[in-house]
């Protein structure tokens, strides 16, 4: 059985970035990829806008992936493609044994001292947002529609309704329009859009595609192929308002109703999950509750920009390297936060024995806010404050703080304060 220091699961933007980081340490690693090509979901994201933070360029998804993949190939970092992880078990010596399946080597096992889970997220489906009615052809998640359109070259529908103003939904509204389909409208159950402002402008406004807020699809019609959908207004608690039903003729329903981090392997290993992010609970090196298992990218929490996915992978990789080279001790405290203000904060825990370097925090606000300050408090002392003119749930925020010698009472708490100063 082949032994590795670190095994990376997934070769999307997170897996590739982690691999390049690990390569510098000289540790023995391998990437496991279930598809036949590396690059993850970026392969089908042919629109631009990737890499603005990291490379100061507007790259397409494949271009962004290519920048990493090229170096991965140059450095001869091994990737098992078309390979599926069917089981991971923790061994008595604290290493992990992975059972893999592929066509060439059938069923085989490898062992790793550390694992980096970079296996991304999946899309929520029509049923998971409780849309009722029939089950005809023509109901697709935006990602599936994107695969059909961009990879296979087939339009999934000619006239469609898009539910959900998440970024992929907006991107697909433009993409389908450009390919000649009619997008009747984008419907959003919330009273604010879910996607980035730049995507609302560039994908909807520029193409005269209407966006309807506080309206959702409640029913699908048609036995064989979608014939129409019922859209309905909702109140501020997202309850459907009777009598506001409207039937819209279309042959497709495209859903962009949220992404869920994929953590089936993590769950099977007993990794503790965060109910807010649906990803693992991690410390500042992105190590989960299981020693030696790290999580990054959209498997950890859903990011808005790929640049931060790569960044989180590098943090996880550094953590993995340190773990393999010198298993450090842990003394963990929870990062407290005001649940009325924040959707989540990652990392959820701080290892007090490892706070020499800056810690990157990722968070999202719960509501659209203007003129607020993010305050980090320990005891009664404010150790960090940053002012934001605008803050909205679709846009992930990131801050970097050094906590060395400042944590009192082993406590850290995130708060949001209105106004410029307190």
């Amino acid at each position, binding site marked *: 059985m082949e032994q590795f220091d670190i095994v990376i699961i997934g070769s999307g933007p997170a897996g590739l970035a982690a691999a390049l980081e690990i390569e510098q340490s000289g540790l023995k690693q391998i990437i496991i990829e*279930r598809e036949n090509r590396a690059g993850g979901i970026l392969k089908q994201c042919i629109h631009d806008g990737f890499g603005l933070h990291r490379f100061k360029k507007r790259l397409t998804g494949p271009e962004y992936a290519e920048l990493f993949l090229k170096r991965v190939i140059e450095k001869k970092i091994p990737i098992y493609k*078309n390979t*599926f992880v*069917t089981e991971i078990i923790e061994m008595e010596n604290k290493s992990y044994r992975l*059972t893999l*399946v*592929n*066509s*060439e*080597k*059938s*069923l*085989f096992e490898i062992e790793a001292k550390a694992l980096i889970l970079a296996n991304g997220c*999946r*899309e929520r*489906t029509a*049923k*998971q947002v*409780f849309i*009722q*009615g*029939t*089950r*005809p*052809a023509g109901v*697709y*998640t935006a*990602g*599936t529609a994107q*695969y*059909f*359109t961009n*990879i*296979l*070259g*087939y*339009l*999934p*529908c*000619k006239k469609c309704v898009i539910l959900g103003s998440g970024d992929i939904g907006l991107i697909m509204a433009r993409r389908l329009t450009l*390919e*000649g*389909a009619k997008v009747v409208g984008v419907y959003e159950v919330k009273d604010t859009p879910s996607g980035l402002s730049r995507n609302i402008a560039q994908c909807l406004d520029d193409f005269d595609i209407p966006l309807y807020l506080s309206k959702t699809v*409640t*029913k*699908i019609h048609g*036995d*064989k*192929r979608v014939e129409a959908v019922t859209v309905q207004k909702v109140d501020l608690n997202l309850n*459907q308002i009777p009598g506001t039903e409207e039937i819209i003729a279309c*042959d*497709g329903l495209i859903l962009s109703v949220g992404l869920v981090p994929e953590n*089936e392997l993590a*769950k099977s290993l007993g990794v503790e999950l965060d109910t807010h992010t649906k990803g693992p609970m991690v410390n500042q090196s992105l190590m989960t509750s299981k020693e030696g298992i790290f999580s990054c990218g959209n498997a950890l929490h859903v990011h808005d920009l790929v640049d931060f996915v790569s960044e989180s992978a590098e943090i996880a990789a550094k953590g993995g390297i340190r773990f393999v080279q010198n298993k450090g001790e842990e003394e963990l405290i929870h990062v407290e936060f005001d649940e009325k203000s924040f959707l989540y904060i990652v990392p959820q825990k701080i290892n007090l024995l490892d706070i020499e370097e800056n810690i990157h925090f990722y968070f999202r606000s719960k509501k659209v806010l203007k003129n607020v300050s993010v305050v980090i408090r320990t005891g009664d002392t404010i150790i960090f404050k940053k002012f934001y003119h605008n803050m909205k749930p679709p846009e992930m925020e990131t801050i970097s703080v050094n906590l060395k010698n400042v944590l009192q009472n082993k406590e850290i708490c995130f708060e949001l304060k209105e106004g410029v100063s307190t």
Partner: protein
Amino acid sequence: MIAKYYQFDIIINKPIICTEENNAIKLEGEVSSWQEVIIAGKVAAKSKYRGVINKITVKGITVPSFQRPNFTDNIIEGQRPDVLIIGGGVIGAAIARALSKWEIDLMLVEKECDVAMHASSRNDGMVHPGITHPGSLKAKMNIRGNEMFEDLAKELDVPFKRTGMFILFNSWLEYLFGSTFIIRNAKKNGAKGVKRVKVKEIRKIIPNIPSDIVGGVTAPTTGVCPPYEMTTALAENAIMNGLKLSLETAVINLVETNNEITKVITNRGTVYPKVVINAAGLFADEIAAMANDQFFTIHPRKGEIALLDKNKGDLLNTIVSQVSANLLKSDTKGGALVKTAEGNILVGPTAFEQPYKEDYSTDYTNINALLEVKLPIIKGIEKGDVITYLAGTRAATYKEDFIIEKSKKIKNLIYAAGIQSPGYASSPAIAEEIERITIQLLKEKREINKKKNFMSVRKGIPNLKLLSKQERGELISKRRDYGHIVCRCEEISKGEIIDAIHATIPALTLDAIKRRTRAGMGRCQGGFCTPLIAQIMVEETGKNMLELTKKGDGSNLVSKFTKS
């Protein structure tokens, strides 16, 4: 448990004309709601007649006849089978398999593009223990069918699990009366092992039941088996033994002369069978009417089912339902939490009357009510675990019992009709009985012998995930495609999908592949694998992507090629 449709407090003010026809009571008239139609039928069912023909209409509602394929050809024109079975659900398939043991020319017509497209792929897959309706044909068939099921599943390579079932009570009074009632009925029917169980014993098997449960009843013979797989397996085994299966073949009319069916006219040609078996499920009454022999009406009773993510499957390893005052008041009377043979927890089904046989739409209020009532039976499952839900309709007659008999009027027509719950559990027994009646009828015409070379064993598509590591590894070394995982949620390989496409009954639609292999049945509901499966379908069938469908004609997956 008294179902809502037995409430006779609604008075029908409109005149209903009652006449006798074909020894049945026939109702005619116009009322203002479907509920009134049902109540009138229920009242008439109390009469001495053998059946109720309910022709009452509702103002403003047109109930359509069954959907038919929209093409015609001559593929089965002039065929003269000894036996023609109408309907490719589990009943038709089980009958076909039973009759394929005999030296006869056997044909089955099914209007859809695959078998098991209606009730047989839209139920909870439960093999009931037979603890209700003592004295009924349903009860008799259920007990016998349950006994036969396990061996049948083994022969046909379909997963079967004898999970047992627990009925829980949260009040001592209901427990006392309820359990006595259930145990007495079970005894009358001959269901084995049905007895009271203490909470302590139940908790050993289902640890996370509510704290207010006072006791329960166990029915250990209860089992589960995927109904669409069973139907496919039965039909495939029958084909191995000579059955001619004609899909997308709808019966348009039956020609009856001197109380004998001489011709069966379909959209794919006219057939001249010696014996016709009506196993047309929801549409059995319409087939009976074509033979001028209607004596019952099917009133479609819809049920909705929700399925939970497999990752919560470990919370239940049996079937559990709860009887409580609260539950009796609710609209979702029946139903349970069922650990399916495939590993998901299934919730439901609901039960309510509505006029449309092929309306499989789900309803927000019903699904919500179902989940609110059923999910609390086990701690740890919640609404967020739901991955999908679906609806099916039960082919109920007003007598609410099976019709398994030779026609009293038409010499060569046999009925397997009104097969509602527990029809799936009963299917092997129904087939056995129909086999007996059919062979007897054929023997009146000529000598019939059993086949010497009947093949009782059928091998299904291997489910590699369930094999031992060694077996799985060996299979992959023999066939590389078994190592290429396409459906990540259910871990289904390209090899299994190819096997399904080239199976005895080829799976040629996305849904058919899903029913055969489970690809697309997991938590992402085909989000990732749909385009991949579509590509495999193109490679294996030589069809163009534009021709591929989800479930037959008109349900195309994609609309346009963008590069032309």
